């Protein structure tokens, strides 16, 4: 894409970033985080660190607690115990909009779009960087108009960066799925985040779009030098772009490290493929499965792997499920 990193790199510095400035991107540290929903333990004593300027992947079977973790970091859920430290603050004590003010942006697993055009959506992302209130907007005071124009230009650049340039003034409702997914991403980028949380950014996308998105994510990190925490089921994508991977299962951390090590971690493999009843070595042959076999299709990748691999003998409940979170919840409660 011609509108690649070039426009973003210099502009990122000039665009208003009130609380970032020259100071380095802080690390995000999750410390002993536990989240309980009335008896159901969604996250159990979870600790990991997202190093500054890296792509950190959070993976695990469905219902492992990845989205819960995202929701705690972005302030949507309250933590039962534990802390999330970012820029000398404990995010678990802050309201979502205060967390956004710190430069933490997130996308959603399901597309959450407001009405209006792509431009409107991206300008919503500029909310934390702009000041215009009701009176100033109603009267269209000059500085408000200037502010709006300036930020609209920046939003247009970000739209170009994600290949949404021609769609900038179109209603989002009429866009194709992949485009809307990119609007999500662009809106988060419009917040000029220092930590970007991506919740399944390529879910449901076409393979070609997927690789384009992977490339974009890597470019965002390189161009803006921000940290990215990503939840994704597409193992191929994770292994390709992630600098570090944390694996969750049943709310517990089961592995943490660089992708190569994760690929060969027995705990991860058993979480994804299930543990055989009697401990036979041949299972270990299936080791590279999560990395390679899951490549072409995301969610079902792990699922079909199970079907052919261990099948029905994974009665202990460690089998990866293709079911929805709710089903998993009931399973977990038992």
């Amino acid at each position, binding site marked *: 894409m011609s509108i690649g990193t070039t426009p973003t790199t210099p502009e990122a510095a000039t665009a208003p970033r009130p609380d970032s400035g020259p100071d380095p991107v802080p690390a995000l540290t999750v410390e002993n985080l536990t989240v309980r929903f009335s008896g159901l333990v969604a996250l159990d004593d979870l600790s990991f660190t997202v190093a500054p300027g890296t792509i950190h992947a959070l993976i695990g079977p469905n219902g492992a607690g990845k989205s819960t973790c995202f929701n705690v970091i972005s302030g949507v859920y309250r933590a039962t115990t534990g802390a999330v430290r970012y820029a000398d603050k404990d995010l678990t004590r802050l309201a979502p909009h205060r967390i956004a003010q710190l430069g933490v942006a997130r996308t959603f697993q399901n597309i959450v779009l407001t009405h209006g055009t792509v431009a409107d959506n991206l300008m919503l992302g500029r909310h934390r960087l702009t000041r215009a209130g009701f009176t100033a907007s109603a009267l269209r005071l000059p500085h408000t108009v200037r502010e709006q124009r300036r930020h609209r230009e920046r939003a247009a650049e970000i739209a170009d960066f994600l290949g949404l340039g021609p769609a900038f003034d179109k209603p989002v409702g009429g*866009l194709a799925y992949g485009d809307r997914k990119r609007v999500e991403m662009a809106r988060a980028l419009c917040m000029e985040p220092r930590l970007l949380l991506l919740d399944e950014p390529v879910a449901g996308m076409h393979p070609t779009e997927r690789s384009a998105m992977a490339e974009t994510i890597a470019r965002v990190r390189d161009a803006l030098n921000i940290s990215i925490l990503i939840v994704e089921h597409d193992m191929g994508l994770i292994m390709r772009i992630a600098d570090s991977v944390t694996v969750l299962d049943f709310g517990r951390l089961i592995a943490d490290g660089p992708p190569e090590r994760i690929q060969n971690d027995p705990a991860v493999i058993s979480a994804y493929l299930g543990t055989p009843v009697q401990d036979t070595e041949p299972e270990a042959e299936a080791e590279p499965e999560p990395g390679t076999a899951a490549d072409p299709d995301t969610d079902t990748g792990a699922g079909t792997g199970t079907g052919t691999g261990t099948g029905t003998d994974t009665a202990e409940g460690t089998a990866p499920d293709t079911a929805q979170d709710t089903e998993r919840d009931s399973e977990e409660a038992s």
Partner: protein
Amino acid sequence: MSDTRDTTGSPDTTDTVDTTGTVDTVAAPAPAPADSPPVQARWSGRRAPRGRRAATLTAGVVLLLALPFYVTSFWLQTGLFAMAAVIGAIGLNLLSGTTGQLSLGHAFFLAVGAYGYVWLAAEPSGTGAGSLYGLGLPPVLAFVLAIVLAGAAGGLFSPISGRLRGMYLGIATLALVFLGHHMMLNAPHVTGGFNGRSVPPLDIFGFSFTDTSPDGLAVLGVPFGGLERLWYVGLALVAVAWLAARNILRGRPGRALGAVRDSEVAAAVMGVHLTRYRASAFIVSSMYAGAAGALLALVFKRVVPDHFGLLLSIDYLAMIVIGGLGSVGGAACGAVFVALIPHLLTKYADDLPLLTAPGTTGSGVSPGDAARYLYGTAIVLVLIFAPGGLAGLAHRRPRRKGDGSPRTRRFPLRTRTAPKEHTP
């Protein structure tokens, strides 16, 4: 964008939301510049050309400005009621249409505006039990302060309006109507009690908006009495209210409010302070109601408690539903529709079947009731056939010529808003 290029041939990329075109989702994000011109052209066709819009607008404004020269005082008075309704509906629309916060207490804030103006502008009069308080401020100042007062009343309610959302706020605000009614009846020194209070006329630097002072004012040979003069005040107020609302909606606050309606979680994560924005929308809506109430008082020349009942709140909800939630122009159209009907039915009661003019004996329906039946029907029709309201009808994409494909059937009862597909 190559994806959209793919859909240009397909009949249905209407402004309804549900085109999750998985089939069309083909291409890589590489933009195809050569394809963008037709795409642009297609999308710009959604609205009437700029020139025609401007012409329509100008014609409308000229017509409104010229009306006092041609129509009788009945029409002027009815028009002024409609203007007050337009201002109030624009305000309620900001709250209910844009932010998704239901309010049944709009009548209360209209009452605050109306009584506030009277109390601030009137000279104290009477003695003993029948005495009426008043500050005797200049009427223009009183008008502005009445709006501020209504805003302050909305602000007092903000601990509740900031926390409750949607339906729940509607129920909480229901209490306001009854509270207001009780206060109007039981503070006779301020409100005049059951019989209400007469309204001091508006007066700008000695120019009175009554039939006198200056006496016998005539413009182009047409005598300009109180209603004619007030007509232009009303027009100016509507223009200000309209522009302010439109600017708010197109600016940062409007986007934030829309986000609060569509997904609170997403809005909060984008940095929108939910409580503050909900409360702000409520306050702004109260101020609009205050302005509407004060204008209403000026037109009525008398404020009475019974006018500001629950039915008035419901009238306002009917206005914004008929007009189309979230659209300023729609709210205005709905307001005119709902405000005009009872007056028209009253005037022509004798000529219309099934109606009985008020004050006469007959077996027919009174015009007030008939008006409610009528816009009740209108609401049902709008919800079924035009979920976007009058505004939605105006913005409906014109049938595209040439491609020969039949229009995809619109599903009735589909709401204009996207289905809530989001769980955090």
